[in-house]
Structure formats: structure tokens, C-alpha cells
């Protein structure tokens, strides 16, 4: 995994982007604050992050709050694009229950994928129940 960030924290002029994959094992033991910090560090480094698993709803709102607080304070940062695709989506009650049990045993929703990218690079993440389409600027 590469790090492209310069000395100054900010997006600066864009010359491309990279995609980083973060396995669940990398963030499962982190607290909410550290998880969000890790995600934002990657996004601020102009990377699109593909995260195995998904955040808790409270972590997602915290991520949005922190993102909003950064807009206007970090040069060229305009926010994030975020989408989650989960195996649970569009399934029946029993399938969801089975999946819930498997997730409980695994210690997190491993059947989910979260895509997060800086809004300066990612124009839109189109999502329908079964696929995520990432539109890059």
C-alpha cells in the first residue's frame, strides 16, 4: 500500500489516484475514533479506499461529521463519496438471520464492502442492491 501524501496535509494538485484495499483484520481491533482517522488519512492521501466489512451506523455519521468539519479547512477537500454493499441487502428474513449469525461468529460483517473516496476524484458512486459503480472525474 503506497502513501502519496506530501509534507502538508491537503489534496494539492491531482496527478492520478490509487485504490487501497483495507482488510477487516486491519481495523477490527481499532476503536471508532481510530477507524475514522485511518479512513480519513487514506482518503486525504488521494486514495480510493475499499474496506472489507462496514462501519457501524454511529461511525458512519461520525465520519460524515468529521468530513464536514474538514471542508474549508483542508485545501481542495470537498468531502467524500461513500457506498456500502452488503450481502444482506435484498435478502429474505431467514437468509438475513443466517448471515447475522455468521457475522456474529466472524466478529463483523465480512460480507460487506465499503467504498470511500475523496469527492475531488470520485464524481459519484452509483449503487443498486447488487453492484457499485464508481464514476471517476
Amino acid at each position, binding site marked *: 500500500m503506497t502513501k502519496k501524501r506530501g509534507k502538508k496535509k491537503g489534496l494539492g494538485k491531482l496527478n492520478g489516484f490509487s485504490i487501497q484495499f483495507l482488510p477487516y483484520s486491519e481495523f477490527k481491533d481499532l476503536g471508532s475514533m481510530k477507524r475514522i482517522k485511518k479512513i480519513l488519512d487514506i482518503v486525504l492521501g488521494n486514495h480510493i479506499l475499499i474496506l472489507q466489512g462496514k462501519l457501524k451506523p454511529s461511525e458512519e*455519521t461520525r465520519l460524515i461529521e468529521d468530513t464536514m468539519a474538514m471542508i474549508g479547512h483542508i485545501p481542495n477537500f470537498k468531502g467524500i463519496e461513500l457506498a456500502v454493499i452488503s450481502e444482506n441487502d435484498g435478502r429474505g428474513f431467514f437468509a438475513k438471520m443466517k448471515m447475522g449469525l455468521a457475522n456474529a461468529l466472524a466478529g463483523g460483517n465480512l460480507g460487506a464492502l465499503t467504498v470511500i473516496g475523496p469527492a475531488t476524484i470520485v464524481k459519484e458512486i452509483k449503487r443498486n442492491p447488487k453492484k457499485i459503480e464508481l464514476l471517476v472525474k
Partner: protein
Amino acid sequence: MAIKIFKNFFKRIFFSIFKNKKDIKLGFYGPPNAGKTSLANRICKDFTGEEIGSVSKIPHETRNIEFKEKVEISYKGKKMVFKMIDTPGIATKIDYEDFLKYKMKKKDAKNRAKEATQGVIESIKWLDDMDMVVIVLDATENPYNQVNITIIGNLVARKIPVLIVANKVDLRKADIKKIEAAFPEYDTIGISAKYGTNLEEFYESIFKLTKKL
């Protein structure tokens, strides 16, 4: 004499119950430009004669939490008093350059963007204070927007009853079925806040939702 004392006793008890009963805090949440203020205005105008806030084609018109206290909604002989809370639209990105398209000056656009980011934070902070929430979605847009899912997820975690409103059904592109398919666990009501379409069904759903409180 005994009957009179009894009557007064019950009167006092009932009075104290209703005196302490607070208005139901009804929040309007959703992404920007979905029609939250238009719907809140329509309800407030119908029952108080006053509006709650201004509406605009430019996104993030509501940048502060707006209230309207003591809104007594009556439907089919039933009455309930609500505190209406209109919230700024929740977004994951805000770019001042988007406002320039509406012929806004750069300085004003930057200011609007700054206020909009603070509005989003304020909206999220207020989630804890709601008794029940109406999620207003634009029926012409893709409902699988993560912001919608995040708001609903947070309300479910807080055990706050939710009603989903698919607004702008007057537009040809509107697709209520897509919204129903995206959130099958919740009641979805298709309305047009602009024209007041299907508000009777909306009020019925609101009264039904109060039973979950």
C-alpha cells in the same frame, strides 16, 4: 357531594397528565433538495397558517435547524400536538463551486458551503432528540444513496420510529416502487409536497407511527 369530589379528583389527575405531556418531536430528515422544508411548510401552513422556512432550487437552502412549536394536526377527528423540526439536508460532500451554477457570487457560494457543512453536523447532532422521524426522499433520485441508509441505520439503532416519504411524485421520473424496494421494512408514502398530493395518507401514517412511541 361524594360524586363531586370524585369528579374533581379525576379532573385534577387528567389535567396533570396532559399538562406534563410534551409535544411529539417530529423531525424531517433526508438528503438536500428532497423537499423536507416544502413538506414541513405544507403541514405547518395547513394547521397553523404559517410556514417553517424558505425553499429554493439551490441545494442547502436550510442550513440551520428550524422549529415550529405546538402544531396541532387533526385527522379524522383525532388531534395530536407536534413540535416540527426541519433539518438541513445531510450530505457527504459540499462544493461551493456547485452553487456558482446558480449565478451566485463566489463569496456567497463559499459562505453558503461553510454554513451547509455546519448544518449537516447540526442535523446529525439532533438525531438523538427526535421522537419520530420522516425521511423525505426525492422519488426521482436513486434511493440507494449511502446517506439515506446511514440516517435510517442511526434511527433504528436509537429505536426512533421512521416513516419514509417519496416526494415529487408529480414528476414523470418519480419511481416510488424503487424506494419501497430499497427500504422494504418501512412504510413508504408517495406524496407531492408542492401540490399537496396524498397528504391524507401521510397524516394517517403519522398517527399510526405515534403508536410506536
